[in-house]
């Protein structure tokens, strides 16, 4: 299909790539003018993202929805066709990335101002554009070659962006860890794709469709595992997640937002693509594995998040949690496909994809908020923050919406997708007679645990960061973020609310995706009453209407209003000091800390965290009147200390041992050759 000015998804997509390209090149052209570089690159990125948005929306809605849009770009290397192929699944993910692209680019316009003179805005802008383009290309690639190239370019730019503040050793290590893990994942992907290629002799995704049925079972399982690991690394599944909490926090915050929002979603995209599109009818254990890993990731992710007092690390751990929740949906969908319940599978898939969108929106929102906070306070340590709600009112409000959404509180979007997940798990209980079905309610219970812990975590994150008195100088001096930064956050906040209140509208957009993957369109069935009430397909099985809840809540505000008018109209509010037990006023040191806040959880899950604490007191007369107390508390990251570090040590030790081979002695070298010679001579006889 040619890509003239026909207002097709393909045209918008090509325009989007052109926009990102212009943004990247232009940013470099403005190397010496950071202001110009910022405006140009983020402006271009924003416009290009709008192009991507249009492309995705026109592919998913309107007359030709669900049609596969294919664009052949001219390729300069004979054996690599540059095929863009936007089907419904790809278009949905392009929608995710483009939506975030618009908001984050808007935010970056203001965010980059602060970097001027300190870091190269041009480099940031250029890499930012390339990363967005690469992520979009990952979703729009039509063959494995192009996909892998886009995948690696994405990893590369993400690495460069993570290493943006390369002066800090922490950043450097995080970048390397990210890149190494990512590359190992890519290795698995390469192998997986090549195994698929081996089976059909083509790289085209169109030819991979349902290819799994032609593979022998053993190989098919191998492909499944390879892709699970390969995409799992990028998605941050436990235990492949260790790069994520290291890398996301150190990147510039707009990049963190994109990384947590969409970069890790490329893993979800890949799994959905491969498991549902390529591999055909799944055996039961695939779904069980995915569901189990998802559940474990969700619980462990949120537990580790609770232990963090680095605001951005905390958010990064929450990404692991949410990826787990998404995978619970996907895993359940796989299990339903196996047991022959396509409608349920579609529901579970919808839950997963909906949560993908939601997580992208609220996590980006939270990272943008955290970015604004970090920019003002110059620290990521929550223990030095506080009191920001009074200083950064809008940012705190936006962050609060994000926090409520990620904690799955009604009436926001996080609740809707988790509700869908619960529903699919509940209904899944009846799909099979085997004991495996216990996984569904247990998964649901753990999902509830996850949600409640997430709420605890965000009470901590919001409460310690934004409420009470400032604990540090940076927080004391904080000012409201700039206008464009607020606009970017506001856009995402609006998206959070919209996705919560009007799920049916969004589910309509998802229809072509489920049509493609399971052959069913659900939005009609899920629509219970005029588009505002969402059901699970059977209205008697439960309905929700977040719009209704919100409206009813607003209506019920009448009750306090009436009570106030009736009884307390003449009351006055006086500002006074907080009760300080008769001391000389409260100081910030007396406030509850983030570490203190999560201590009960730390003690309850002692077995997992293996907390260590060191207390040193110095006192003059009595140990009860210490002059100084130093308190240190550590939580062990089990996967690092028990798996990765020993592994790393072993590899290094083995490598050092091998160095003996090259000990500098010419005699030894001659002996190597001599032995080779003798062996080969005997061999050649």
């Amino acid at each position: 299909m040619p890509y003239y000015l026909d207002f097709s998804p393909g045209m918008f997509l090509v325009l989007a790539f052109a926009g990102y390209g212009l943004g990247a090149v232009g940013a470099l052209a403005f190397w010496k003018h950071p202001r110009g570089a910022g405006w140009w690159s983020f402006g271009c990125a924003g416009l290009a993202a709008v192009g991507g948005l249009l492309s995705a929306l026109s592919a998913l809605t309107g007359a030709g929805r669900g049609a596969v849009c294919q664009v052949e770009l001219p390729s300069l290397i004979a054996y690599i066709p540059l095929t863009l192929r936007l089907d419904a699944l790809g278009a949905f993910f392009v929608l995710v990335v483009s939506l975030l692209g618009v908001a984050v680019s808007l935010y970056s316009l203001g965010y980059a101002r602060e970097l001027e003179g300190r870091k190269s805005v041009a480099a940031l802008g250029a890499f930012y554009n390339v990363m967005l383009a690469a992520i979009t290309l990952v979703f729009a690639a039509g063959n494995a070659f192009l996909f892998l190239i886009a995948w690696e370019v994405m990893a590369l730019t993400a690495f460069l962006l993570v290493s943006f503040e390369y002066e800090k050793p922490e950043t450097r290590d995080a970048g390397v860890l990210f890149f190494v893990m990512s590359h190992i994942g890519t290795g698995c992907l390469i192998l997986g794709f090549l195994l698929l290629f081996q089976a059909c002799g083509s790289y085209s995704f169109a030819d991979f469709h349902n290819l799994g049925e032609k593979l022998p079972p053993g190989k098919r399982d191998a492909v499944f595992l390879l892709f699970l690991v390969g995409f799992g690394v990028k998605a941050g599944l436990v235990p492949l997640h260790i790069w994520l909490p290291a890398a996301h926090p150190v990147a510039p915050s707009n990049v963190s937002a994109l990384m947590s929002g969409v970069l890790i979603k490329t893993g979800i995209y890949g799994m959905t693509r491969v498991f549902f599109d390529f591999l055909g009818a799944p055996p039961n254990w695939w779904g069980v594995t995915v569901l189990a890993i998802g559940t474990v990731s969700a619980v462990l992710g949120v537990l580790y998040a609770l232990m963090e007092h680095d605001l951005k690390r905390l958010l990064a751990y929450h990404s692991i949690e949410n990826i787990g929740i998404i995978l619970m949906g996907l895993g359940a969908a796989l299990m339903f496909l196996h047991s022959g319940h396509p409608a349920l599978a579609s529901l579970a898939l919808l839950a997963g994809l909906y949560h993908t969108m939601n997580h992208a929106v609220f996590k980006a929102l939270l990272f943008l908020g955290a970015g604004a906070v970090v920019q003002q306070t110059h620290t990521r340590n929550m223990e030095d923050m506080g009191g920001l709600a009074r200083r950064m009112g809008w940012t705190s409000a936006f962050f609060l919406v994000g926090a409520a959404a990620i904690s799955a509180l009604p009436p926001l979007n996080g609740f809707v997708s988790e509700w869908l997940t619960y529903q699919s798990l509940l209904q899944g209980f009846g799909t099979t007679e085997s004991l495996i079905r216990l996984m569904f309610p247990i998964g649901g219970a753990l999902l509830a645990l996850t949600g409640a812990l997430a709420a605890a975590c965000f009470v901590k994150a919001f409460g310690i960061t934004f409420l009470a008195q400032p604990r540090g100088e940076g927080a004391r001096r904080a000012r409201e973020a700039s206008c464009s930064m607020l606009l970017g956050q506001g856009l995402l906040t609006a998206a959070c609310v919209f996705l919560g209140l009007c799920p049916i509208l969004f589910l309509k957009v998802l229809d072509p995706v489920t049509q493609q993957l399971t052959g069913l369109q659900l939005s009609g069935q899920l629509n219970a009453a005029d588009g505002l009430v969402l059901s699970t397909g059977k209205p008697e099985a439960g309905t929700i209407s977040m719009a209704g809840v919100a409206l009813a809540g607003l209506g019920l505000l009448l009750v306090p209003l009436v009570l106030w008018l009736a009884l307390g109209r003449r009351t006055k509010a006086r500002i006074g000091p907080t009760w300080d037990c008769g001391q000389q006023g409260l100081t910030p040191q007396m406030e509850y800390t983030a570490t203190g806040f999560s201590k009960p959880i730390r003690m309850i899950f002692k077995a997992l965290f293996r907390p260590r604490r060191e207390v040193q007191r110095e006192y003059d007369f009595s140990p009860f009147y210490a002059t100084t107390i130093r308190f240190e508390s550590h939580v062990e990251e089990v996967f690092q200390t028990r798996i990765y570090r020993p592994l790393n040590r072993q590899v290094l030790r083995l490598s050092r041992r091998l160095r003996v081979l090259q000990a500098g002695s010419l005699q030894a070298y001659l002996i190597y050759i001599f032995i080779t010679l003798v062996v080969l001579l005997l061999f050649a006889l």
Partner: protein
Amino acid sequence: MPLLASLIFVPAAAGLACLPARSRRVMAALGGLACLATLALGVALMGRVLEQGVVTEWNEFLCADALSAWMVLLISVVSLGASLYAGRYFQRDLEAGAVTFGRVREFFVLTPLFQTGMFFVVLANNMGVMWFAVEATALSSVLLVALYNRRTSLEAAWKYIILGSLGLALALLGTVFLYAAAVGPQAHEKLPSFNWSHLITEAPRFDHGLIKLSFVLALIGYGAKAGLAPMHTWLPDAHSEAPSPTSAMLSGVSLKVALYALLRFHILTTACLGSGFSRHFLLGFGLFSMLLAAPFILVQKNLKRMLAYSSLEHIGLICAGIGMNTPVTIFGALLHMGYHALTKPVLFFAAGNIHQTFHSLEFRVIGRGVIKVLPVTVLFMSLAALAAAGMPPFGMFLSELTIIRGGLEARQTAVSILILAALLASFCGLLQQLSRILPGAREPGPDGGARRTDGVLAMGLMLGGLVLFSIWLPAPLYKLIQQTALILEGKS
């Protein structure tokens, strides 16, 4: 115009013309011009080969087919880069008093001779002549390795010459056996010719036992020169101690030229035996080299040695790719040869700048934050390192993928997985090591050492070429590589 002869004479003349030269500038200019000329000749040769298939001159003494033409292109490109870089490099060395003018002249005389030797290797029709051309490259390069006359460089040179000469003695024995195999049991008269063009037509009639022996000896002999493990032990020493332009030449093409000689034996052996005898050896040694290189990269303490091990890795990959012996893998391996030739010199040039600025190649001594002192160098180095590690959009990603893909296509799954694993491991090593020195905070040091723009031309040219050919493989080049692959498959 006698293309082949000029290819040999132009650099030789440039080298000899440097003998009486008094000025470094003049010598550098001469070298550069000669390289430009050979590059032009190489391109012309490519056209001629594509047109005629085989080009011969001097009564078939010189002969070039697609494989030779491909090698000629690589040699000229890397030499051009090295000569562009060498001028300023030695100026800095002279300023720092690291070398005397006599030594610099030695470099500018020997490098073109080294180049001549390599051209001779790939253009010689006679297998015996090819042998002594390889020996000539070894002898000219060993003095280059010893140029700094430091203790360590003498040690490296000594190891290089001893292991190299011994290897070449074995290769000579292999050549002798090849001759004997060609003569066969019946003939009592002289072999009509020991020329490649003759041998390849007669190959199926060779004595099987002798050709096997001959290949094995050539494998060890030329393999030692090509740096295949376990004969590679000289390689990190020589690469790390030589002046950076020489390191670039050694790693960029010299290894491949030796491999070329080995491949000629491989083709003959395969043509004679018609079985996988030689390819399995290539595959085995290639894989072994790759797997051995990875841990050494991971715990290496010296920048240039690490780069040398990376070369070992790449040579291993090329060898394994050819050893897998499917059209796709051979194509990938040849492509990889080209991309590696464009990439590795950039790394060595950057390492040269770093060496001259920090007066050491030890990671520990260099410390972190090189980017603050040499931003441009670090930019090029990072890009080249990413390319060498196999990241897209650089071409090595494609060539590596092609090789693995070919392997899987031909059901050599285990081998492909091993290759992939080794590549992953070396990627991790390279990234981990370079991240120790390149990023980080540091105060810009005192003046001296490389300036910001030093070597930009050479590095930019090579890297630009890499990027260009990564995204655009011109049709003639593509055809040339395909024809070369056909030769290696034994189907030409």
